[in-house]
């Protein structure tokens, strides 16, 4: 059974993208090695430098003293290296006025349930769509599929009103519920396509043995689902972690607002506080970068599947 590794429903070029990130794929491509001209190499290096320098400049700045950042360019650092961790100390503080520590915690508190809740619900729904016969199945599936493309802007205002009426305005619940609802269509779609590729014989054999849907769901589906869960989980984690719009709409209160909103606010009110902005930006960047580097393979897969999400 462990030899069965169903794929998320992908186009040929998407499949190739996955193959390319695997070790065997890379070995195969090295056969194609071409002679590259010096001009081509120069252009490639130039592009890479242009793409990296802005981030590098802010990174260097985040380690410079406030006064140095505000009076001289970051490139002068290499002639006159003054280093400090004060910016990070200020920014990570959970007590000081300009500290972002609490918002860093909020980002985690917001993100973790917003990933787990849709996964739980979508796993059930996807199984129903993939393997159970019932009236109206195709209609409901098309509906859920179509909802993927609804820009979440159309849902925000009425949702805000509903939350206030329900008495949960300004709490974490508003953000968790919103992100979960917005993520469900994509989650169901990804998991459904994945489950659909599990061989029919496997399910039928289990049913002949007298196993019900509940048992099949737990015994056969869940263990096989890991790659799909990882692909969706990482996509959703980064989506929620990096989100600004939902946070701006619902997380008005300081006690619930995430890092992205705190940074956007800081940039708006103290746009020249570069010692805080630089360190703050890197605190927020470090999490997705670690996720990206450690789980690159699933990351690309999730990104491809989620390209149309609202």
């Amino acid at each position, binding site marked *: 059974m462990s030899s069965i590794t169903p794929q998320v429903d992908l186009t040929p*070029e998407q499949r190739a993208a996955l193959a*390319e990130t695997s070790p065997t*794929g*890379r070995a195969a491509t090295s*056969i*194609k090695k*071409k002679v*590259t001209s010096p001009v081509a190499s120069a252009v*490639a290096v130039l592009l890479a430098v242009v*793409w990296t320098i*802005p981030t590098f*400049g*802010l990174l260097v700045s985040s380690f410079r003293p406030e006064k140095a950042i505000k009076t001289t*360019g970051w*490139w002068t650092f290499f002639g006159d290296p003054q280093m400090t961790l004060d910016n990070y100390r200020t920014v990570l503080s*959970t007590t000081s006025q300009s500290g972002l520590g*609490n918002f860093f*915690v909020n980002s985690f508190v917001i993100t973790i349930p917003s990933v*787990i*809740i849709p996964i*739980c*619900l979508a*796993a*059930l*729904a996807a199984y*129903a769509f993939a393997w159970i*016969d*019932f009236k109206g*199945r195709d209609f409901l599936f098309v509906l859920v599929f179509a*909802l993927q*493309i609804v*820009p979440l*802007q*159309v849902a925000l*205002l009425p*949702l805000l009103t*509903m939350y206030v009426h329900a008495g949960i305005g300004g709490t*974490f619940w508003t953000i968790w519920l*919103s992100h*979960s*609802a*917005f993520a469900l269509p994509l989650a*169901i779609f990804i998991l459904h396509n994945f489950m659909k590729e599990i061989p029919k014989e496997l399910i039928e054999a289990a049913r002949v043995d007298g196993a019900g849907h*509940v048992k099949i*769901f737990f015994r056969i589906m869940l263990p096989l689902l890991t790659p799909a869960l990882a692909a969706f989980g990482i996509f959703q984690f*980064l989506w929620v972690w*990096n*989100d600004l*719009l939902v946070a701006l*709409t619902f997380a008005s209160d300081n*006690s619930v607002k995430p890092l*992205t909103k705190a940074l956007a606010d800081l940039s708006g009110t103290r746009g020249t506080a570069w010692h805080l*902005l*630089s360190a*703050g*930006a890197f605190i*927020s*960047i470090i999490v997705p*970068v670690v996720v990206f580097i450690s789980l690159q393979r699933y990351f690309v897969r999730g990104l491809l599947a989620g390209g*149309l999400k609202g």
Partner: protein
Amino acid sequence: MDISTKLLTMLLAILLFVAVVGLMLFIAGRTERRSASIVGYVFLFPSIIMVSVGLLYPAVRTTFQSFFDAAGKAFVGLDNYQTIFTSPDDLLVLRNTVLWVVVTPFVATAIGLLYAILVDGARGEAFAKALIFLPMAISMVAASIIWKFVYEFRPDQPGVRQIGLLNQVVVWLGGSPQQWIVNSPWNTFFLIVVMIWIQAGFAMTILSAAIKAIPEDIIEAARLDGVNALGMFRFVTLPSIRPSVIVVLTTIGIGTLKVFDVVRTMTGGNFSTNVVANEFYSQSFRASNEGLGSALAVLLFILVVPIVVYNIRQLRASESR
């Protein structure tokens, strides 16, 4: 709220939904003997409720509200839509959005494709690609802060030194520093650069994979025919990866249409840089103009649909190959 309370609430929320799933499984297990199709409805129940209440109903409600006035009380017909297409402010918003959607996908795709070809098979390819791809992983807020620092302006006075890289380069070249994100109309292009910076990695990843998927024998045959590098690109590479190029263009186009974070963080929509998604936010939540805000949200939806339909049809076409 202190940290332990937050974590506890978080745990509670997760447990609640795990319990919901448990309950559904329990009910399903009980009813399964009688009818297998009931299990289907039971499994779907929580998702359908969430999607209906959290997405479907609000979307219908917003569409409805877009025909009402600012307070959401009086029916005004198509007035809000008329405002969008006639008021000078909103016409500027539309113009900017068109600029974003036309420029970003093409430039980002061109750069992504160029880079994919240049590093294809080169030593350190994986690392070179990661450099371009990383902006895709970080938040647009962080990306905007990174670029705002590049564009930072200090007045051109003796004794004052530039701290923004772009202005320093201009000064080194003998020019005078500019307020890149203030001076209209070029400031919109400087914001678009940020989106291109973010999206080029996406284009590069997909197109690089498509290039690697081109069958070896086609390349070999072309080489034997003595096709040069440019001809190879024109007659072999480009036709082979055409479906991927279209998918990339449309996907970036959809993302750009809804661009909000970059404009909001860099200019707040000031200095004539406003776009539809930001104007939606301002009208809905700052100006309390519920009607106009709703109309802008509906407009976004209407604009997205044709691109998505085209995208899906392209995906289908490339699948059936």
